[in-house]
């Protein structure tokens, strides 16, 4: 087996890299693929929290690199899905604790046993980014329809294009708010795609469910009713090569969200 190594990156922080990673990983695992996620955000790890695995981490990637444990020992299995596991980042070290070569080596080893290796990249374009990208051959660039996020995504795309190892990159537009787009107060998905001239792999609507799912440490793809969850599931299917049409956010949520907002405004309480 030779698994695909996909780095999930964005440049700007807070656009949803880690959330995207947790959800795509979980969705792929639910589809029966063997998935390992690597958190490379040394010193600022969060992927464990989104997956609800923070209490199970014994060894981290730094322990592996420094020879304190074997690679397999450091992989934390997901609570629900045996197909899914996490290689956590060290919280007490900085980005220099792991080098590009070491990450590349880890990815190569994991490729033998897993279908997908998802690398969660730290924000920024410094060494942490270089490390995360080192072992990958594909990339997903996460952005939101905001100027600063799009600008940073453009920079990241430039850097990815300069890397020979990266064979393809796709754009995922997160936190899309159909209401704002409709009222011309937010750039549309088409605007962003046109500006960045990149292939689209996913459109994820803004969803308050993300907050509660993070609170619980359960990726939102597990909630089949959630629209964001559906959208992430579709991304996973597209990664696996299926041709899935994009959700029509404007029609479905645009109206519903307004109705909800209207009623919640009357009642003064959400839900």
């Amino acid at each position, binding site marked *: 087996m030779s698994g695909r190594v996909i780095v999930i990156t964005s440049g700007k922080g807070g656009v949803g890299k880690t959330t995207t990673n947790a959800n795509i990983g979980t969705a792929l695992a639910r589809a029966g693929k063997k998935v390992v996620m690597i958190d490379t955000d040394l010193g600022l790890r969060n992927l464990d929290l989104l997956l609800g695995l923070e209490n199970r981490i014994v060894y981290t990637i730094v322990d592996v690199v420094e020879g304190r444990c074997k690679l397999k020992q450091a992989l934390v299995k997901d609570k629900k899905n045996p197909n899914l596991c996490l290689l956590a980042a060290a919280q007490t070290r900085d980005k*220099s*604790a792991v*080098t*590009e070569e070491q990450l590349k080596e880890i990815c190569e080893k994991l490729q033998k046993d897993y279908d997908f290796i998802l690398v969660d990249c730290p924000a920024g*374009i410094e*060494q942490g980014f*270089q*490390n995360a990208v080192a072992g990958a051959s594909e990339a997903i660039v996460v952005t939101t329809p*905001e*100027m600063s996020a*799009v*600008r940073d995504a*453009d*920079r990241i795309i*430039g*850097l990815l294009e*300069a890397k020979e190892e990266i064979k393809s990159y796709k754009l995922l537009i997160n936190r899309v708010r159909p209401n704002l*787009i409709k*009222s*011309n*107060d*937010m*750039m*549309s998905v088409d*605007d962003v795609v046109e*500006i960045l*001239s990149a292939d689209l792999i996913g459109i994820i609507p803004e969803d308050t469910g993300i907050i509660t799912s993070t609170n619980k440490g359960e990726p939102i793809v597990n909630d089949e009713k959630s629209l964001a969850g559906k959208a992430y599931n579709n991304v996973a299917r597209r990664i696996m090569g299926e041709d899935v049409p994009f959700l029509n956010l404007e029609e479905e949520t645009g*109206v*519903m969200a*307004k*109705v909800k907002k*209207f*009623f919640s405004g009357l009642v003064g309480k959400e839900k």
Partner: protein
Amino acid sequence: MKDIFAEFYNKVIGFFRRTEAEEESSKDVARNRLRVVLMQDRTNLTPELMEKMRKELIELLSKYVEMDKEALELNLEQEGDQMALMLSIPVLRAKEESEIEESADNAETESEEEADAQTDIDEEETGESDENADEEEVSGEDDSDDDSDDEDEFENDACDCGKCEKCNPKNKKNK
């Protein structure tokens, strides 16, 4: 029931939105600002450089035409994947040949095209003309200074990639 509410809500909101957004929606503002800033990012052409280029172009072109210097526009624009420098020169009149010879001792024959009111210039071409302009000014020191500055910039860029020596030895030390 919900649908009726929704329709009503949309109509009311739509009415207010329309009157508000008569001018330019914030989305359009964002898109346009972003386009400009990305073109600067992608080409590394700073506003200062553009201004310098503008001035030198005016200097060069005014040998051949009399123009409205204030209204000369030099903009980076994107068409599809291609980036283009658009130069718009409001020409008042072409100069007489005798005038041209007077002012232009070191004649440059290419510039016939540039006298057109609308001129497309590829980045590379402007790069060349930029260099040419530097040569004209001919002060050896300046020239070499400029060159070394350019090299510095490239070194910094290379450092971003993490492959250069600056980045790697540090990591090895920490190992």
